C-alpha cells in the first residue's frame, strides 16, 4: 500500500474547515460532512482524473455529482483544497452574497459544482444523463455520485436505479453513505432501508461494501475494486459504512449533529482533537 499520510493530513484539515464553517454562521450540517470526509478527500485526490480549472462540460474528465447536498461543508472544503477556488472563500459559507450557498448550486458560478442539490433524490438521475452523454461523446471517463442512506427513501432514486441497469450505464459508480442516521433518528426507526445489497443487486447493479468507510486505505481498495467493475455492463454501487461526525468524539454515534453547529467551546474541543496540518483558511 502506498503511503497515504498526505491524504490523512488533508482529512484532518478538512475536518477543521467543516466545523469552522458551520460554527461561523451557527448553521449547516457537520455530522454527515465529517462522515464523508475520508471518502471525498480520497475521491478527489486519489481516484478521479479531474481538472480544477473547471469547465462545466467536463469532457474527458471524471465527474462527481453530490446528491445529498446538505453535506456542502465537506464538498466546499475538498473542492477548495483541490484548487477549484480560493481556500479563503470558505469564510463566506452561507453568508449573504456568497457563492457557497447553504446547499451547492451552479447558480452563483462556483467552480466544481455541476448541479444544484439539496432537495434529495435527484443526483443519480443527473449523473446517469451525464454518463450516457459521455458514451455518446466517445468519452471513456467515469461518473461518480454520493447519496445519503436516508436519501434512498426518495422514490426517484429507484426510478434511476432501474433505468441505469436496464440501459447498461456501466460508467457510473454511485456511493451510498451508510451511516444509519437521519434527521428524526436512526434509519431503522424512521423508515427501515432493509437489505441494501440485495435491493441494489435486484435492481441489476454490482455492489461493493466498504466496511471501514472512514479509513482512507480501505476506501482506496474499495474504489479500485469498483473501478475494475465498470464497463462490464452494470452500474456499480458502493455501500460505504461510515460514522456520522467521525473524527470528533462528541459528534459520533448519534444523529444529533446532523444539522447543528458547535458553540465556541465545542469548536475549540473539535479543533483540539484535529490539529492544523495544511493551514486554516
Amino acid at each position, binding site marked *: 500500500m502506498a503511503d497515504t499520510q498526505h491524504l490523512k493530513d488533508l482529512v484532518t484539515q478538512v475536518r477543521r474547515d467543516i466545523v469552522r464553517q458551520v460554527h461561523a454562521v451557527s448553521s449547516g450540517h457537520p455530522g454527515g460532512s465529517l462522515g464523508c470526509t475520508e471518502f471525498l478527500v480520497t475521491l478527489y485526490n486519489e481516484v478521479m482524473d479531474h481538472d480544477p480549472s473547471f469547465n*462545466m*462540460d*467536463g*469532457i474527458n474528465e471524471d*465527474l462527481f*455529482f453530490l446528491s445529498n447536498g446538505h453535506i456542502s461543508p465537506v464538498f466546499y472544503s475538498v473542492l477548495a483544497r483541490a484548487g477549484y477556488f480560493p481556500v479563503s472563500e470558505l469564510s463566506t459559507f452561507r453568508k449573504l452574497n456568497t457563492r457557497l450557498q447553504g446547499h451547492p*448550486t*451552479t*447558480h452563483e458560478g462556483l467552480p466544481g459544482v*455541476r*448541479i*444544484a*442539490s*439539496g*432537495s434529495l433524490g*435527484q*443526483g*443519480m*438521475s*443527473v*449523473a*446517469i*444523463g*451525464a*454518463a*450516457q*452523454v*459521455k458514451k*455518446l*461523446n466517445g*468519452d471513456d471517463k467515469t461518473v461518480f455520485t454520493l447519496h445519503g442512506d436516508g436519501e434512498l427513501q426518495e*422514490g*426517484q432514486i429507484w*426510478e*434511476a436505479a*432501474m*433505468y441505469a441497469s*436496464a*440501459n447498461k450505464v456501466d460508467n457510473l459508480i454511485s456511493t451510498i453513505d451508510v451511516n444509519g442516521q437521519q434527521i428524526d433518528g436512526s434509519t431503522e426507526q424512521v423508515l427501515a432501508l432493509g437489505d441494501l445489497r440485495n435491493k441494489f443487486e435486484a435492481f441489476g447493479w454490482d455492489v461493493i461494501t466498504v466496511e471501514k468507510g472512514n479509513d482512507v486505505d480501505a476506501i482506496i481498495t474499495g474504489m479500485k475494486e469498483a473501478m475494475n467493475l465498470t464497463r462490464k455492463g452494470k452500474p456499480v454501487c458502493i455501500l460505504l459504512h461510515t460514522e456520522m461526525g467521525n473524527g470528533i468524539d462528541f459528534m459520533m454515534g448519534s444523529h444529533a449533529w446532523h444539522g447543528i453547529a458547535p458553540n465556541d467551546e465545542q469548536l475549540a474541543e473539535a479543533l483540539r482533537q484535529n490539529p492544523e496540518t495544511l493551514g486554516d483558511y
Partner: protein
Amino acid sequence: MKIYENTGSKDTRSGFGDGLTELGKKNENVVALCADLTGSLKMNAFADNHPERFFQVGIAEANMMGIAAGMTVGGKIPFTGTFANFSTGRVYDQIRQSIAYSDKNVKICASHSGLTLGEDGATHQILEDIGLMKMLPGMTVINTCDYNQTKAATLAIADHHGPVYLRFGRPKVANFTPENGAFEIGKAVMLQEGTDVTIIATGHLVWEALEAAKTLNEKGISAEVINIHTIKPLDEAAIIASAKKTGCVVTAEEHNYLGGLGESVARTLAMHHPTAQEFVATQDTFGESGTPAQLLEKYGLNAENIALKAEKVISRK
C-alpha cells in the same frame, strides 16, 4: 379585415414531432427523451432516425427530468416529451432544482395540454401548467397556436440557450400561420388590427379569437387580435400599445384564469396602463371527460364566448 385560411386542420403535437425530426437531422447535439408516450408525442421519426440519441425512460418522469439535466453536462440539448400534466406538476421540484435553478439547457415539451385532450378527463387535463412554469425564474414559456407555429417554435428553442417549456395539444385544429414562418421568442404576433377592443389569445384559442373578430366585425365592432405565443418573457410593449389604442382587452387561453396568460396581461396593464379586461379561461376548476368541442363549449373557451366578452368589456370602457 385580414382573412386567414385554414390550410388543413392538423394537431400541434405533429408540429412538434416534425420539428424534432428536422432538428435531429440538422443538429447532432439534440437528444430526445420520452416517458412511454413516443407515439402520442409524435417522436417516432426522431427515435427511428437517431436511436443513439433517443432515450426511452419508461413511466418515470422525475428520472427523465434529472437525466435531461445531466445530459446538458457534455453539451447536449435535451428535449423531453410527455403530457403537460406529467411534464410540470408531477415533476415540479425536479424541474425547479435540477433544471431551472441549475441553469440547464433543457427543453420541456408538453403535449395534451388543456381541456382538449378530451375524454381522458381531469386527471390528465392540466389547467395550471402555464402558471407553474412561468413562476420559475429563468424559464421561458411558450404556447403555440397551430401546426406550423409549433414546428417553428420547436426549431427556434433549440437555438435559445436556457430552459424552455413548450406547450401544445392533442386535437386537430386549424392550421393558418405561414408554413416555415419565422418564430421569434418573446415577440407578439399582430394578426388583425382593430380599434374598439383588443383580443389577446394563446394556443388553441388564437383561431377562436380570429373567428370572434369576424363575428364582431359583422356587428360593426373592430377587434384587434394579438397572438401571444410566448407568455414569458411577455411582449409587454405590444400589449400596452394595443390597450392604449382600443381601451379594453379580452384575454383567451385554455388554462385556469389564475396563473395564466390573462394574469400576466393584467399585471402588465396594472403597472403601465390600467385597462378594463375580461378573461376567457377556466374559472378555477378541474376539467372533465367529453369531446374537445363539447368541453370548449361547456367551459366557454370558444369564439362565441370571446365575442360576448368583447362586447361586455367594451361596455365597461
